């Protein structure tokens, strides 16, 4: 069997696979890229060819325009691509629409790069599929035992409770434009909220993308133009508005009725983080695995070796040491803590 390092190894550009001559989620333009999901720090424009799920390729086209790469190589979940003696398969990662784990097999050696993932049910994408392998390369965004995310349904209930308690205030929910925003909308619908949800313009094309892949978001409305308003109702008291976090603390938010700032993110577990972000209602809804999910996933897959890509690598490596597992932090650089848009 070849050494794992000969099949996948870290480089400053990203994880490199020599037999395929391809990089996973490269942070600079390369000839051949394998992209795990459509968040901007993993999926960049300008590669010659991109292999990804059809959903991810569609997301990249929405974000960067149709010319984001010369060649698109779609690979549906579970459908393998073989080059010489190396076989590559994308598996569901449960992170956002189209997100995938990368399984690489070569002469009996199996390696899996999880990409960003979570294990909680998400109504907008298929669940993470655990598959046995020799080397598991795991993300570690929330790899600290302080991160034990509450159930997303509980957090959505808190939003609806606040809405009932402050019917005079617009509830402005910050959520990353790709993935989190649509998940929050779906969670609201599942909780029985049928009112039209107001969405920021930056979300529109991505919402359409989800609808195209049969994720129904219910009635959505555009934010009214600030110049043509001035009736009481046009300031949207008691309504839910979803916007990318970058829009929250700008003049754009002035049009709403005494806006109450909420933010849906795994970081909201930590009070000081919420406070620093000026958030009044912290919703700990995460698209990444928390500590329990990360450690249980490693135990479940039970690889010979654990490699850790980006995030709180020290803590996951320590956990592995306590468990008597072989682990290696790769300290990859260039991926955001969570995806700013």
């Amino acid at each position, binding site marked *: 069997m070849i050494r794992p390092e000969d099949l996948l190894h870290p480089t400053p550009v990203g994880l490199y696979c020599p037999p395929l001559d391809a990089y996973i989620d490269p942070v600079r333009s390369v000839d051949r890229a394998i992209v795990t999901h459509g968040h901007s720090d993993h999926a960049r424009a300008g590669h010659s060819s991109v292999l990804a799920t059809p959903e991810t390729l569609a997301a990249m086209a929405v974000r960067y325009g149709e010319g984001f790469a010369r060649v698109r190589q779609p690979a549906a979940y579970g459908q393998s691509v073989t080059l010489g003696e190396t076989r590559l398969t994308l598996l569901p990662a449960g992170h956002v629409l189209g997100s995938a784990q990368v399984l690489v097999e070569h002469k009996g050696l199996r390696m899996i790069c999880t990409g960003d993932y979570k294990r909680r049910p998400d109504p907008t994408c298929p669940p993470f599929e655990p598959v046995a392998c020799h080397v598991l390369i795991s993300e570690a965004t929330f790899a*600290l*035992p*302080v*991160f*034990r995310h509450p159930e997303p349904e509980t957090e959505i209930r808190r939003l609806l409770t606040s809405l009932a308690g402050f019917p005079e205030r617009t509830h402005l929910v910050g959520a990353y434009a790709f993935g989190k925003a649509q998940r929050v909308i779906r969670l609201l619908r599942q909780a029985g909220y049928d009112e039209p949800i107001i969405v920021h313009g930056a979300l529109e094309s991505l919402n359409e993308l989800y609808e195209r892949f049969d994720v129904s978001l219910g009635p959505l409305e555009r934010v009214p133009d600030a110049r043509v308003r001035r009736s009481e109702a046009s300031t949207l008291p008691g309504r839910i508005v979803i916007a990318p976090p970058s829009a929250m603390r700008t003049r754009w938010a002035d049009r709403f009725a005494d806006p109450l700032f909420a933010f849906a993110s795994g*970081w909201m*577990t*930590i*009070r*000081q*983080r*919420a*406070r*620093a972000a*000026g*958030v*009044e*209602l*912290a919703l700990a809804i995460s698209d990444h695995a928390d500590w329990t999910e990360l450690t249980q996933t490693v135990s479940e897959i039970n690889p010979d070796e654990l490699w850790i890509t980006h995030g*709180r690598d*020290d*803590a996951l490596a*320590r*956990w592995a040491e*306590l468990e008597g597992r072989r682990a290696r932090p790769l300290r990859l*650089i260039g991926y955001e803590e969570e995806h700013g848009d």
Partner: protein
Amino acid sequence: MQTFAELLDRLILTPSRQGRVRILRAYLASTPDPDRGWALAAIAGDLKLPGLQAGLIRTLASTRIDPVLFSLSYDYVGDLAETVSLLWPPRPGANRTPTLSEVVTGLNTASPDERARRLEIWLDSLSVSGRFALLKLSSGRLRIGASRRLALQAAADLGTHPVEEIEEIWHGLSPPYEDLFAWLEGRAQRPGEETPAGFRPVMLAHAAAPELEPGRRLADAIDPEVYAAEWKWDGVRIQLVREKDVQRLYTRTGEDVTGAFPELMDEIGLTGRIDGELLIRGPGGEPAPFADVQKRLGRRTISTREAARRPAFIRCYDLLEHDGQDLRTLPFRSRREHLERLVPTLRRDRIDLSQLISFSGAADLDALRRQPPQPAIEGVMLKRWDSAYVAGRPMGQWFKWKRDPCLIDAVMMYAQRGHGRRSGAFSDFTFGLWTAGPEGDRLTPVGKTYFGFTDEELVRLDRHVRETTVERFGPVHSLATGPDQGLVLEVAFDAVQRSSRHRSGLAMRFPRIHRIRWDKPAGEADRLETLAAMIPATEAGTV
């Protein structure tokens, strides 16, 4: 305990002061005695519990959590109470949750061993929020961004009395303040009136900007007929009061520091209340630099020998009461006349008078501000001759006009994740200057700062740290530096003095990042000698 926990959570996340006052008021109105009194004391910073040491909380945590995972978590979260509250392994249904009063009485009456045992039982029974509140409470300081003034404002809003009235009696009251609530709710007489030598809230100045007020330029406004000018001494704002043979010393926030300055408690001839700057006398009789004052202030008590070696004195600039008469409503001009008559009758080595500066207009005052005659002066104060002494920071009355800061270009050497608001991002930076070494120039660390950058800059600084880290020592990241490598920070500071405690032999006062020089090569940053040359000449000889 759960309602108190929810109160803290909401106070932490509510951005506006007004909103926080409203939330606290609603809590005080709907929570029975004595719980609400303990909560008020805790938020005002006046709840004295037998200090549960941070070490004890850590030890307790280490019985449940791997110490390495604990320290990585603590390093990341930046707040001990929050870290432990999130890490504590849940054991639901184990016990009944305690009330706030039970926690306070429990901690007050238990022996040290018993206290740790109780804490553990409570931690098992509470939710994340409850554990956070409990740990904040038992560590002594809440640090949730609510001040005493905010707490008292919320209490005042229960009734019709202005907050100043509560502030005046506050020092004579003790938690859980049932007498205070009874008075505020109109059920009893005003409590605590007979307490002598309490604290009176102080009057503060605005920073002078080129526009003093909208439409009024500083240069046009400075008229000696309208404003008195004094030096702004770099000491500690203090209030000294003697009433009915009780003498006390308070800081500007009302903290009682009587014990730290026994030499000021001698008979000095005062019957009244003065407002002034506490300074330490240097070897030549002149006021010593701020670091010396700080050393004294850090100690609760002090030996007579130490007090005699570095004696404190008060340079006073206002008189609030005299011989039982409240002078605060008088204009500054009249209070000043009272003060000038009083000071010569007091002990001269303990109390002296802050001199007025004579000036003709903005130009010569500006020159004086830039080139003050002594290093312990940090600028000038402007006070309207007709200003009454009003608690708080009233508009348009007093201004501080500080000397311009000194600047130096330094190289970022080490970084650490911040605590509190900035937890998570690298925001504590150690910077250094070039000095000659055996193998050519090397950097010597000269200071540390976590001020002076915007949230956007913080994101970029954080990325710089993550991308240039070459080594880690626990939480400290050591960065790649060299003539062509490293980030130059333009650091502003108020003063520099010699220090035997720092490796560079120099200590900077209030260093903060003035500008980030993304453009400047590290090799062009300043040398240590340049900083040493900025020590004021009067001090250069003394170490």
